[in-house]
């Protein structure tokens, strides 16, 4: 194996960890409520901007701002679910939830345009150029931190889902809503929490993304494609599948780039997404969803 390919593999894994946390929140929301959150990537964008503001305003390190950003997006998402989406679900307008998230997406983009304008922003910390070298392979520090934090946070989510009472309630609702109601679970408050967690995960992903990407109000578009790819590849609604899918996708993308060229990066991901939908629609794991 040549060195370039090994480097590509390493980069792919470093990227894939981030993709995992990018897709997990979306997948969780879909799995529990059946809502396709088209605003997920824009929530990531808002997360990035908040990190940027904290960084440029009070000099807070992007990784240290994660709890703050996550909390902020949790609250926003919680409110959206409680006052917008739940009322639609209650009245049986399930199809309209997608429409609402579509609107929310536009709303967030325009809010970002108003507050932060359309200029490119970036978060450049003192250690952003630092990298280790091992057997001729480069390991950029920032990306290692991103990978580590992504996996850690996803693991925390997983622990939350299987250990805590709330987590168990969320899983119960996702398995069988009617039965959960009969067991005395308040489904709508579980929905609020789930969407809040989805938002918080998006916010975390945004914070993690801020040091390695330029931040614009329109960055959500391409990201949403990645989110779809990860979620579908992992099996929609399948949280652990999303982690594996994120890594697979990251590696596939970077290795693909290694052979085809950088500019095809996103096209590769989307291509995988469409292919998965057509060839193995149930994803790596998960249930079938062709009619």
């Amino acid at each position, binding site marked *: 194996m040549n060195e370039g390919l090994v480097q590509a593999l390493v980069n792919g894994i470093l990227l894939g960890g981030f993709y995992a946390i990018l897709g997990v929140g979306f997948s969780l929301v879909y799995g529990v409520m*059946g809502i396709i959150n088209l605003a997920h990537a824009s929530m990531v964008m808002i997360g990035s901007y908040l990190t940027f503001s904290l960084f440029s305003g009070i000099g807070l390190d992007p990784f240290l701002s994660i709890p703050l950003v996550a909390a902020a997006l949790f609250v926003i998402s919680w409110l959206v679910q409680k006052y917008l989406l739940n009322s639609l679900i209650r009245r049986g307008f399930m199809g309209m939830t997608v429409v609402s998230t*579509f609107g929310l997406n536009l709303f967030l983009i325009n809010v970002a345009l108003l507050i932060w304008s359309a*200029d490119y922003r970036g978060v450049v910390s003192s250690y952003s150029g630092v990298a280790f070298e091992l057997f001729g392979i480069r390991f950029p520090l920032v990306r290692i931190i991103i990978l580590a934090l992504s996996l850690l946070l996803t693991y925390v989510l997983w622990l939350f889902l299987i250990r805590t009472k709330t987590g168990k309630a969320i899983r119960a609702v996702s398995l069988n*809503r009617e039965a959960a109601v009969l067991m005395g679970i308040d489904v709508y408050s579980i929905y609020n929490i789930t969407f809040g967690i989805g938002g918080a995960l998006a916010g975390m992903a945004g914070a993690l993304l801020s040091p390695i990407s330029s931040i614009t109000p329109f960055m959500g578009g391409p990201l949403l494609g990645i989110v779809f790819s990860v979620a579908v590849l992992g099996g929609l609604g399948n949280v652990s599948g999303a982690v594996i899918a994120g890594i697979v996708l990251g590696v596939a993308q970077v290795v693909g780039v290694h052979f085809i060229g950088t500019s095809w990066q996103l096209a590769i991901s989307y291509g995988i997404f469409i292919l998965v939908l057509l060839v193995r629609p149930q994803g790596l794991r998960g249930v079938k*969803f062709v009619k």
Partner: protein
Amino acid sequence: MRDLEFKQQEAALARNRLLAQTRNWPLMAVLVAITLLLVAAPFALGGYWMRVLTVVFIFATMAEAVNIIAGYTGYPALGNAVFFGTGAYVAAIAANELGVSLAPAIVLAGLGCVTYAVVLGLPILRLSGRYFLMATLGLMEITREVVLNLDITGGAQGQIFPSVTSDPVLANRLFYYLGFGLLLLTALATWWIQNHNIGLALRAIKFDEEAARAMGINTTVYKTAAWAVSAFFTGMGGPSTGISWPTSSQQRSTRSRPRCGCTSSTCSEERARCSVHCSAPASWSFSPSSCGPASQSSTILFLVLSSC
């Protein structure tokens, strides 16, 4: 459960439509009056408002076209603006590479999109609602990426359609009537579909695709056709705006000066206004990121229309 609730809501909407059909003569009169007003409008309006109206026509066309696949057939094609962009590119490339003039270029754009929709539709329309929705959005992204990377499309710079006429007033009117005509044509087609067996088949598919199949409807053919028709009108909308859409760099940065297809540079620096402010739409340009506003506006319009 959810699907059942959704169906009941749908039925409620259908009931309202039924009521509307029985006594719509006053509505018809109002529609005719509005149509006449719009036909006469170019002789009273300034260039700015004419271009605003032109864009409105095209977006309404797209909304109407989405309605055929999403409203009648029940396949939520939120990424339908991919045909808007594809149409614009097909027309511009046909004009620049083959020297085709505007009218045939527009028809070519429509036909190109029909081909695209049929080729993609056969596999993608097998997916059920939500997955279809995600697939169409993904399709939009993938198409943009591919267009960005191809040579023939001009990469991030996009395409400039050659100037149609040097007279700005004439150009304004040309594109105005083009957009208006397209809207009328789409409305007519929708009306025809609604009152014809095709509409019956599409609505049957929407409410229960499997039962529709068991009643002898070749669902593959009908839903693909619905998407193809939708793509046809959306695709013709692409080259019919006569407007230079902002390129990606203009969308992202307020500092750079919008590059319009027109010669004079009276363009506002504001992103949203750039498109309608060019003094003469005799030529127009289009780039991979131009679909965004069209996609959003037309989808919103469709959603607003379909929920009232």
